[in-house]
């Protein structure tokens, strides 16, 4: 089992008033799965993703990642997991300004102390079909291309799992479709992908759908009528 959440709870404390955001979440994700999480705004989707992606810690519960209990990991150990085993794609791209596509994709490798940084970055950029944009600055490319750069950055360290939090939220349907195509392609190559989205259409690109409401999992079903996205962004059912 790649991911196993046991009774995960998250509360925020403001002025001594505890606001529960996640309540007793139990969830397992196998290697190679393509999982979509849906739910109304404020239901706790992003919070759950951040905890699974080691950007945040749960208030209570246990988190097993690749068989290891990560509950008591130090900040440095979590940084290492984020660097080597997890890739994150955000709704708002989060690319470095005044920096080239290539240097953006290299960023995680800077903290890996590895060799062949350049080659790995170029390979990842090619995988999202942006080889011709490698030396462009991030303010010189379109939104859809920005999100593909973000995917290349998430991919560059060959992580165990890629988290994408509303990756198409800021895109039109065509460039959104192109992004979904890349995610499906990565899944086909064996990557584990966890996707958060508002739209049923987008969620149906996955294999399994989880619905959450008020911090609780309400539904967990396989997707029967899967959508397939084309490289140009067109969507077939």
């Amino acid at each position, binding site marked *: 089992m790649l991911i196993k959440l046991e009774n995960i709870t998250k509360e925020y404390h403001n002025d001594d008033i505890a606001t529960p955001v996640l309540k007793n979440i139990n969830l397992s994700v196998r290697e190679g799965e393509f999982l979509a999480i849906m739910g109304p705004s404020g239901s706790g989707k992003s919070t759950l993703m951040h905890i699974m992606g080691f*950007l*945040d810690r749960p208030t209570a519960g246990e988190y097993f990642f690749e068989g290891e209990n990560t509950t008591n990991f130090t900040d440095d150990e979590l*940084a*290492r997991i984020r*660097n080597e085993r997890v890739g994150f794609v*955000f709704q708002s791209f*989060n690319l*470095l300004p*005044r920096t080239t596509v290539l240097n953006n994709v290299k960023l995680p490798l800077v*903290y890996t102390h590895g060799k062949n940084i350049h080659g790995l970055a170029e390979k990842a950029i090619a995988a999202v079909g942006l080889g011709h944009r490698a030396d462009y600055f991030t303010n010189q490319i379109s939104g859809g291309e920005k999100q593909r750069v973000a995917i290349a950055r998430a991919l560059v360290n060959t992580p165990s799992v890629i988290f994408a939090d509303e990756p198409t939220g800021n895109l039109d349907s065509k460039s959104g479709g192109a992004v979904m195509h890349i995610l499906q392609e990565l899944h086909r190559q064996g990557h584990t992908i966890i996707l958060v989205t508002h739209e049923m259409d987008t969620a149906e690109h996955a294999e399994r759908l989880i619905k959450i409401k008020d911090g609780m999992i309400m539904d967990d079903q396989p997707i029967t009528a899967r959508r397939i996205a084309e490289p140009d962004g067109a969507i077939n059912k």
Partner: protein
Amino acid sequence: MQFFLNELKTVLRGLRARKGRSALTILGIVIGVAGVITIISLGAGAQSLILGQITKLGSNLLAIMPGKSNEDGPPAAAYGITITTLTREDAEALRDQIRFPHIMGVSGSVTGTATLLWRNLNVDTFFEAVEADSFSARNIEIASGEFINPTNINANVLVLGQDVKELLFGENDPIGELVKIKNIPFTVIGVAKPRGNVFFNNEDDKVYIPINIGQKQILGINYLQMIGIKVDAAANLESTITDIEQLLRERHNITNPEDDDFAVMNLADAVSLLTTITDALKMFLTLMAGIALLVGGIGIMNIMLVTVAERTREIGLRKAVGATNRSVRNQFLLEAGTLTFLGGIIGIIAGVVISYLVSLGARYAGLDWDFIISPISIILAVGVSILTGVLFGLYPAFKAAKLDPIEALRYE
């Protein structure tokens, strides 16, 4: 190392993207470092100037002046009061080798202004009328001819200073020529070597004549204005001063030192006093430069805090892709250190240029000024500037390192 180089590249790229602000940020450091370099260089230049003057004067010299040296104010002579009690007999008594075994030379002298006439040329200058053995007692060196000595002490002879010689005779040999002061004819017997400025007096704009003629024929006085003494070794200076004071009190019938009508001065003392003053000045100016560095450091901290706030999202992102707290902290420390290092380098260049210009100016003004840049001052300046950067970069860097990745990514 690879990581460090990558980081340095990132930092430099970032700084270049914010040129204007980076320049303003390091201005304080530039001024501080330039200040330190300049002050240390000027201090060294001034001290070598003073030391050079001492060696010109000769070491182990004492000067006896008429009038009591008054610790509460200037000597009587400064008020125009003429004291006539110091005489050639006093100077003669000091030549007693039995009583004063450490005295190597004694030279009584008087000085005045004189118009020197040669053919139809004349030049306004100063004369110094000296006793026969002043050559050794005063460290005067001869460029050509001879100096005033026991064989010509009563003759109408004259030794030219370099500047006077050049004014009247140019490149020609003046030896044997006849010049006049107040209608008294003198034969030129020698030219002194250039001495330059000593305590802001041009020692080359003067002529030397025998004491008798200066006293009796030109000034019409029979007292001395100064007795120069050369002592054999520095260790004997203090005891010789005491011995001289004792002798002069005997001769002038003084029982209470309060009533002294003379003062024995140690030139080394004057010099060490000057050195103390320049040292104190240097300390003060260095302190000012230090304050400039401190202000520069606070400027760095201020800008770094702004930078950290502006780049909160970037910090969040870096943490999200695996930057540890330590690497975020190091990045900002490196950035502050790089900024101040650059500031230090620019400051050093500015300081060296300023010091060089000052030395040029001083030489132009006729001072024997050396252009000295001590390596220590450069090491000090670079070290202090980097230290300032790291020190004042610490707080912003720790602030950046502590940021929560999710909060930082959400920051607008």
